C-alpha cells in the first residue's frame, strides 16, 4: 500500500547533501512522521524554555522588589508619613530630599514599574495629606511620563494599564487624548477610558451617557459606580435627565442606582414615569428605586398597577411598600400575605408587614393564619435571619 514516492526519483539527487538524499529515499509516510516528530520536539523544547524563562523572570522580579521596595518605604515614611503629620500647615513646594543615586535607580527601566505599583498601593490605602504627597512624589520622580508613554503604546492592554495608573494617581489627561479612546473598538479599553474620563474631566464628566448606544455591562457599572462614588470633588448632576431622555436601558438602570446612592428625591417623578415602561426588568428596578427613596406618593400607584405585573415586579412592589413605611399599605400587604398562593410573595409581604407593625398587630395576625404562614412570619421576626 505505501510505496516509495516515485515522484522524487526524477529529481537530480546528485546536488543534494547526503542526509537529504537519505530522507528523500524514505517512504512518504515515514517522511511525514519524521517531520512531525521534529516539529513536536522543537515545540516541547520551546515550552520548556518558556517555563524556565518565566521562572527566571519571576526570580529576578522578586529580587528587585526585595531590593528597591524597602528603600522606597523608608523614604516615604521618613519624608511623607512622619513629616506630614507634624507640619500640616506647610504650603511650600513639595521638596523631597532624594539622593541623586536613588532617584536614578527609581527612574531606571529595571525598577520604575515596581515603584509605580507601590506608590499606587499607598494611594489606595491612604488619602488626605499622604495621598497628596504620594501624588507629588510620583510627579517628582517623573513617573507620570512613564504612564503617559504607556498610554500611547500600540498594545491595548498597555494602554489600559497606563490609563489606570494615571487615574489612580489623579493625573489630568487631556480630553483630546482620552475622548477618542472612549469609542475604541476594544470593549475593555473603552470602559477604562470612560472610567478615566469620569474621574478626571472637570467640566462634563457624564457626557458619554448622552451618546453611548451599546449597553453598559454589569461589570462596567460596578467599576463606574466605584469611581463615581469614591472620587472627591466630582460634580454630581441630576440623574433624572437620563432617566427621562436616554434610550439606553442600561444607562437608565445605572442612573437609578446613582439616584438611590445620592438620595436624589427630586428625581423621583422621573422614575415614576418608568412604571409604564414596557420592559419589566426596568420597571422592577424603578419600583425598587422608589422604595429605597421612600417616595410615599407613589404608593397608591404601585398598589394600583400591582395586579397586572409579572412576579418580579410584584415582589419589588411588596418590598417597596415595606420600605416606604406607610401604615396605610399594611392592609394591602396583609391581604397579599393571607391569600396569595405564591411562596415568595407571601414571604416578601410578611417581611414588609413585620417592618411596619407593632408586636400586638403581628400576634393578632399570627393567630389567624395557617401554620405555613406562621412559619413565614416567624422567619421574618427572627433577628438572626437577614434575608
Amino acid at each position, binding site marked *: *500500500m505505501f510505496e516509495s514516492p516515485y515522484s522524487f526519483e526524477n529529481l537530480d539527487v546528485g546536488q543534494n547533501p547526503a542526509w537529504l538524499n537519505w530522507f528523500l529515499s524514505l517512504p512518504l509516510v515515514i517522511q*511525514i512522521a519524521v517531520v512531525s516528530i521534529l516539529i513536536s520536539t522543537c515545540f516541547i523544547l520551546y515550552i520548556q524554555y518558556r517555563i524556565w524563562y518565566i521562572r527566571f523572570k519571576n526570580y529576578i522580579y522578586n529580587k528587585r522588589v526585595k531590593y528597591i521596595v524597602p528603600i522606597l518605604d523608608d523614604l516615604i515614611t521618613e519624608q511623607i508619613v512622619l513629616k506630614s503629620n507634624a507640619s500640616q500647615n506647610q504650603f511650600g513646594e513639595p521638596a523631597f530630599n532624594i539622593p541623586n543615586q536613588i532617584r536614578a535607580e527609581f527612574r531606571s527601566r529595571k525598577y520604575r514599574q515596581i515603584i509605580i505599583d507601590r506608590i499606587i498601593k499607598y494611594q489606595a490605602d491612604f488619602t488626605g495629606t499622604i495621598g497628596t504627597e504620594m501624588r507629588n512624589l510620583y510627579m517628582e520622580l517623573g513617573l507620570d511620563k512613564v504612564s503617559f508613554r504607556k498610554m500611547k503604546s500600540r498594545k491595548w492592554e498597555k494602554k489600559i494599564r497606563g490609563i489606570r495608573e494615571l487615574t489612580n494617581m489623579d493625573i489630568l489627561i487631556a480630553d483630546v487624548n482620552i475622548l477618542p479612546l472612549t469609542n475604541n473598538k476594544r470593549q475593555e479599553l473603552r470602559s477604562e477610558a470612560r472610567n478615566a474620563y469620569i474621574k478626571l474631566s472637570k467640566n462634563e464628566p457624564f457626557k458619554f451617557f448622552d451618546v453611548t448606544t451599546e449597553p453598559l455591562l454589569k461589570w462596567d457599572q460596578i467599576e463606574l459606580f466605584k469611581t463615581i462614588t469614591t472620587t472627591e470633588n466630582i460634580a454630581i448632576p441630576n440623574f433624572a435627565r437620563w432617566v427621562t431622555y436616554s434610550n439606553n436601558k442600561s444607562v437608565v438602570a445605572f442612573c437609578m442606582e446613582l439616584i438611590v446612592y445620592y438620595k436624589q428625591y427630586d428625581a423621583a417623578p422621573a422614575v415614576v414615569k418608568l412604571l409604564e415602561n414596557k420592559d419589566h426588568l426596568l420597571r422592577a428596578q424603578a419600583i425598587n428605586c422608589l422604595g429605597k427613596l421612600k417616595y410615599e406618593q407613589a404608593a397608591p400607584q404601585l398598589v394600583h398597577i400591582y395586579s397586572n405585573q409579572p412576579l418580579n415586579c410584584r415582589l419589588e412592589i411588596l418590598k417597596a411598600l415595606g420600605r416606604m413605611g406607610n401604615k396605610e399599605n399594611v392592609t394591602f400587604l396583609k391581604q397579599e400575605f393571607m391569600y396569595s398562593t405564591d411562596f415568595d410573595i407571601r414571604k416578601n409581604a410578611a417581611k414588609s408587614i413585620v417592618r411596619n407593625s407593632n408586636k400586638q398587630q403581628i400576634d393578632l395576625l399570627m393567630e389567624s393564619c395557617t401554620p405555613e404562614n406562621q412559619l413565614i412570619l416567624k422567619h421574618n421576626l427572627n433577628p438572626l435571619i437577614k434575608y
Partner: protein
Amino acid sequence: MLQIGQWLINFYESSVFAYGAILLLIYTMLAIFSFISIRKYLRRESCSDYHDLLKSALSPGISVIAPAFNEGLSIIMNVQSLLTLNYPIFEVLLINDGSTDNSMEQLIKVFELEKVDFAYNPKLHAKPIRGIYKSTNPAFSKLTVIDKINGKSKADAVNAGINVASFDYFVCTDVDCILEMDTLLKLIKPVMEESSRRIIAVGATLRTANSCDIDQG
C-alpha cells in the same frame, strides 16, 4: 483469494495509521487553540482589577453551598476558612447531610448555633430538612447550617441548599475543598462581563492538596 487477504491487511494497516494520524492532528490543533486562547486570556487578565468589586455597592450577593457528610475531623476549620472569603455580600450554607458522627454537635458548640424557624420554598426535590440553624454570635452571621436527612448523594444536599439560598448566584463547593480568598471575586467577574449571552455557570480549576500543608487557607 490471496490478493483479497493482502488487500485486507493493507486496509487494516492504513486505517490504523490514518486513525493515529488524525488523532495526533486533533490533539495538536487542540493544543494550539488552547495556547492561543490562554494567551488572549492572560492578556486580558493582565489589566483587570478584581478589587473594584469589593468596594462597589452594586456587587451581587452569592450563596456558597457546602455539603458535608461525616467530616467531623476537619469541619470546624473548613467552615472558618469558608467564612474568610474575600467578598462583600455572601452567605455560607453548610449542609449537614445526615452525618452520623459528632459534626453537628461540634458546629453547634463552636459557632454558637441556635435552631431557627426558617421558611423556605422547596423548589427542588430533596430529602426533608430536620432543622436550620443560625449563629447567635454576630461574628458568624454569614453562616447558616442546614441539618437534613441523608439523601445518599451530593446533588440531594446541594438541592436542599439551593432551596434555602437567598441570593441569585450560588457557588457549589464541598466542605473539604479549600477556596482561595479571592475565589468569589474571580468567579463572578465573567458573569458580570457578558451582555448578549447570559452566563449561567462558571468552572474553576481544582488542585489536589492531599497531605500538603495549606498555608493561609
